[in-house]
């Protein structure tokens, strides 16, 4: 199985360890990983700001990079959702269609395609789980508190396979952290307040780590944690699932 690794731009630049963990984890599962070197960004920052028309260059570049694989996997629910919903290429409509239907967020790929049922992972820490909205409400990685529907969570099922991990859920199980792309700077006051409130909710459980499936949310929470001198760390789920004794 040839898996094209899509590493969102800000992970490539600022959080290489998340990309490394994602790659190593998938390799452990027996996937053949390729990382197309000319990839950049999914185009979401422009599109969510109202300029979907300015993300066409990103779309073309994305299609050119990911046409020759069986699946595309990324450690980000948000970027995957954007590709699924908005990727278009007038010159290569079939290739774009293939990508839209064969791109997976990491935990959904592990659960639905690789059907992982056990993991050789060890992470002896107290972890709070942050549900990122686009992964949850967009990709349906877990049930949602608003709906009357059976309960499930792909990422939490995976975390439950990790030895030593003590999982804590915040009281508001799926409230947004306030990152929201450019919202985090154009609506700075509300964005930060939302982030502070998420952190407070996790702090009540005395967690050592806040984990999530989207580095963008975690980067925002990390910025607030560091400013207040907190010892709580943020980690992507790939890093935890890839941890061993």
């Amino acid at each position: 199985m040839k898996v094209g690794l899509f590493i969102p731009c800000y992970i490539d630049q600022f959080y290489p360890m998340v990309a490394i963990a994602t790659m190593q984890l998938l390799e452990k599962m027996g996937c053949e990983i390729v990382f197309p070197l000319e990839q950049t960004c999914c185009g979401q920052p422009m599109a969510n700001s109202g300029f979907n028309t300015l993300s066409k260059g990103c779309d073309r570049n994305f299609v050119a990079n990911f046409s020759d694989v069986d699946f595309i996997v990324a450690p980000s629910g948000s970027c995957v959702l954007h590709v699924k919903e908005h990727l278009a290429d007038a010159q290569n409509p079939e290739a774009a269609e293939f990508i839209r239907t064969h791109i997976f967020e990491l935990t959904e790929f592990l659960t639905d395609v690789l059907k992982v049922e056990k993991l050789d992972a060890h992470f002896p820490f107290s972890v709070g789980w942050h549900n990122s909205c686009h992964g949850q409400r967009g990709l349906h990685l877990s049930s949602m508190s608003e709906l009357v529907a059976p309960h499930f969570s792909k990422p939490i099922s995976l975390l439950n396979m990790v030895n030593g991990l003590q999982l804590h859920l915040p009281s508001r199980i799926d409230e947004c952290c306030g990152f929201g792309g450019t919202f985090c700077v154009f609506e700075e006051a509300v964005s930060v307040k939302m982030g502070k409130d998420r952190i407070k909710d996790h702090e009540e459980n005395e967690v050592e780590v806040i984990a999530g499936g989207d580095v963008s949310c975690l980067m925002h929470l990390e910025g607030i944690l560091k400013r207040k001198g907190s010892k709580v760390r943020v980690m992507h789920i790939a890093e935890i699932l890839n941890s061993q004794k």
Partner: protein
Amino acid sequence: MSKSHAALAAEFTADENRTDWHDETLWWVRQKRDKAVQQIPEWEILRQWASAIKEHTLSKLDEYLAIFEREAISNGIKVHWANDATAHNEIILKIIKEHSISKIVKSKSMLTEECHLNEYLHQSGIEVIDTDLGERIVQFRGEPPSHIVLPAIHLKKEDVSETFHEHLGTEKGNNDPQYLTESARTHLREKFIQSELAITGVNFAIAETGGFVVCTNEGNADMGAHAAKIHIACMGIEKIIPKAEHLGVFTRMLARSATGQAITTYTSHFHRPRPGQEMHIVIVNNGRSRQLGREDFRNSLKCIRCAACFNTCPVYRRSGGHSYHTAVAGPIGSILNPNLDMKANADLPFASTLCGSCTNVCPVKINIHEQLWKWRQVIAEEGLVAPSKKMSMQVLGYILSKPSLYRLIGKTGRWVLRHMPLLVKFKSLNPWYKQREMPEAPSESFRDWYKKNRRS
């Protein structure tokens, strides 16, 4: 243009304790809603039905409106058509003047807020008493409602006490809710008894019967309509449902979505004037037919004004209704108001993280967060985004479409962050840094690591 949502929200959050209180109060309402809907195993099916009934109705709106008018007239109701807010206000003023009336009560109607009826009548020297408790409170204070179901939710009991002391002469500093409510009740009873004309809103208008339904918790619509010799009900064209049998789908959902109650305390059905009474219905367009013509935004007209999207919205809860500077705030307001005035409300679709919770709580399944995204595209296309933002997006789009340029800028950016971090630490230029640290910049990108370690 008034201040933007972002600026008004920054003012609101400046008082962090009050912001916490506002957030927690509305979150409590959201939790009550959750408990109520979890008790209905067929909740998601009801949502599906409600959505389908509304979509069907919108697809034949002209026909159902004509049927409704015919049936209402045959019931003895006088039907008026208003193409915009001004026409709506003029129709009401004309009825008032024809009867030389001065004592008017009004129960909650967001449509009359949208049309600024109170201000309009005030300019003609006519005072309207809002009889919904929350609306009366904000009316005393000269403020608009901050929430369509809970108009004074931004106020604490201490604020209400002060307002009532000033306007009703209640004891200074007495914050007892029972005492304050009792005082308002006595005050409003007097207004009901004296009133000659009552204005109400309409929650549902039923085409086949020509009747309409008004839902309140305080019974104030009934008190007004039953005491006055003239009843004017104001409704937007989207309030129609085809048949009486459809009503139960909506009444089961409205109060559960709004406050977690099984049903509103009063669900009043009006079909015809009582002997000696005059009953009017004003059917208002005010931009709704334009929205009906916008394919991407048409189904926003399914809204039944339950405000569940307000209560769940993490941005609304932390910025308050007044930060939306429109009659209908919250997520639904942010997709309705650009239709009314795109330029004045160009900021509203951006006052969201697109988290999608609004769409999930919506009882009629409006894809609110997707419409927020689509409005952003329309607003950008119309040139209503700040030029600086547009330019930064053009630059970003260019860099990210050129792999080698992206790598160069990434490398340079990380170098600057590591070696000259002060460059990005101007809080006025970098809003991220105001209350957040910058992410640490590694010397190597993942791509660098991959090339070194994995590329065969």
